[in-house]
């Protein structure tokens, strides 16, 4: 059991490319930290630096009160689950799990106890004599988990462990991982690009973009109060509607409480309601362009009738001027119909014009 602390961690590649631009965060003992971000944001690199598979060019990483910058991966007392599982194909499931213990010269009876315990937890008991080639994707994933837990390390590191599984299995394994971590109480760092995985697994969520941290915090706090437009559009599906607004426009819509210059207004699709009544919040007059029915709810894609100026698009963001409305049930307006979507004032998010700062509420 240990805490992990990163202090101004940086990574510069030999060519001079700054991949990690100074990252600080701390994961408390037994906490589950998720690093989330789009591909190429440096999250996997950062995890590999914690593991010791990549060098740290500046700053320091502290695992359990020990600076590990110059320490070999084997000596860091961590275990890692790789995206492609990285099982040893020529060894049986038992030997795969026992390998790390044998390297540490543990006595065979103790190894047997630990492997069998892990196999019992992960329901791999019947597969101990098989080789990885004879297992399904989900079973391989569990062997990779088993290899990590038999070691009883201070920290678990997960590098997108579920991305090679099909959608259904991914959800099942996500729940398994969470239950396992709660039970073992081992500090964990988990990398993913899937915001849903991030939201459901994390005690601490670290949203990364371009080698930097955009926001750190409790997942629900991040969802409710995203610090930047990047976080606002990356966390949550469908993404938050982001619309550039002029001060007078905002004032008239919101009732004039927030006196600000031009900025970006954000409103989550589920906070919009299709209604013709005037409210104290903001109202959009939309032309319905597309409808997506997913059963329990329906997404309405509409364009604003007043011309909207375009803003810099972040990954996953809605196109300029398009507004998504999420309504419960399957009853929806027709395509081409004109509707009014309204959101109450307390549900609005306001960002600076460059999107780098949250200014209200």
């Amino acid at each position, binding site marked *: 059991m240990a805490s992990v602390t990163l202090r101004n961690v940086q990574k510069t590649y030999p060519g001079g490319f700054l991949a990690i631009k100074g990252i600080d965060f701390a994961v408390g003992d037994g906490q589950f930290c998720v690093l989330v971000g789009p591909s190429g944001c440096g999250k996997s690199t950062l995890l590999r630096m914690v593991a010791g598979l990549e060098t740290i060019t500046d700053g320091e990483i502290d695992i359990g009160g020990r600076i590990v910058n110059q320490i070999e991966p*084997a000596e860091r007392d961590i275990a890692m689950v790789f995206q*492609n599982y*990285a*099982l040893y194909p*020529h060894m049986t499931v038992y030997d795969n799990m026992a390998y790390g213990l044998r*390297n540490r010269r543990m006595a065979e009876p103790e190894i047997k106890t630990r492997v069998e315990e892990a196999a019992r937890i992960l329901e791999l008991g019947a597969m101990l004599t098989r080789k990885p080639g004879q297992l399904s994707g989900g079973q391989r994933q569990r062997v990779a988990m088993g*290899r990590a837990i038999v070691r009883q390390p201070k920290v678990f590191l997960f590098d997108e462990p579920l991305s090679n599984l099909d959608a259904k299995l991914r959800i099942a394994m996500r729940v398994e991982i969470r239950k396992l971590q709660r039970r073992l109480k081992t500090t964990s760092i988990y990398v993913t690009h899937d915001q849903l995985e991030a939201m459901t697994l994390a005690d601490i969520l670290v949203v990364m973009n371009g080698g930097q941290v955009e926001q750190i915090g409790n997942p629900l706090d991040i969802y409710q109060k995203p610090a930047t437009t990047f976080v606002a559009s990356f966390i949550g599906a469908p993404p938050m509607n982001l619309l550039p607004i002029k001060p007078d426009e905002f004032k008239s819509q919101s009732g004039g409480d927030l006196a600000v210059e031009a900025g970006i207004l954000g409103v989550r699709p589920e906070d919009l309601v299709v209604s013709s009544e005037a409210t104290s919040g903001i109202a959009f007059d939309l032309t319905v362009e597309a409808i997506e029915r997913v059963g329990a709810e329906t997404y309405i894609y509409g364009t604003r009738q007043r011309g909207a100026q375009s803003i810099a698009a972040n990954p996953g963001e809605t196109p300029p001027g398009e507004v998504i409305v999420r309504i419960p049930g399957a009853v929806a307006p027709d395509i081409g119909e004109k509707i009014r979507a309204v959101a109450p004032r307390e549900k609005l998010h306001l960002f600076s014009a460059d999107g780098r700062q949250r200014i209200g509420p």
Partner: protein
Amino acid sequence: MENRAIFSGKLLPCLLILPQLAISLIFFYWPAAQALWQSFLVQDAFGLSTEFVWFENYVNLLQTPEYYHAIGVTLVFSALVAFFSLGLGLLLAAMANRNIRGIQIYRTFLIVPYAVAPAVASVLFIFMLQPGLGMIARALQRAGIDWNPVLNGTHAMILVVIVAVWNQISYNFLFFLAGLQAIPKSVIEAAAIDGARPMRRFWTIIFPLLSPTTFFLIIVNITYVFFNTLGIIDTATGGGPSGATQTLVYKVFQDGKVGTDLGGSAAQSVILMVIVVALTAFQFRYVEKKVHY
């Protein structure tokens, strides 16, 4: 996961394998059949009369002590060459598989020896190891070693082993390097996190995962050392001194081409062929079980 092309007719697949079949027939099966036929014949010195003698050639051969000597020489020679060319090839490939500056240049230079013809390689080493004027030979003599491959059988054997190994390392290096690069990096990283030090990682993870490559190379190297080293031995030692480097294939060449005993030579090449086929079959039967694909 099988991904095969399915042909509907019989004509196209037959046409496609025809060139390979033709080459095998003309350059392997025909000469092999001829050798088998000739091994039952005896010709007089002027080639005027030929007599069918059944197994007389074989009986004569198995009664000559020199033949058993050649078998011994071949075993020593092939064991040494296979061991060193595989071992050094693997060592160099493991070194060249790391991220070091200028690795492309090293790799290229390591492959170049394969482009040198065996006879040319022989000549290069003869110059360097020539007792009178070779620079390595003189260095050895200065160090107090009475180096003389022309008179000393052991030295002659060392000379041909060096040339044969040098000539074959590149080939093994190339295949081992490709084999090493096919091992997923994350598996090696997982082993590193699992606490395996580099040497242990090599013997418990990398070497077993290389086994298909190693197995293939053992077969190829044995074939190489049994047959293709003829040019090296002919140029470097001519089988001498007093038969110290006379391998089976070189004896076939000498008895048939130089001694013009075509029947005896054909009998030898039939036996040699049987030995190599048996060795290969043995490996597929027993060694391949240890290979992890």
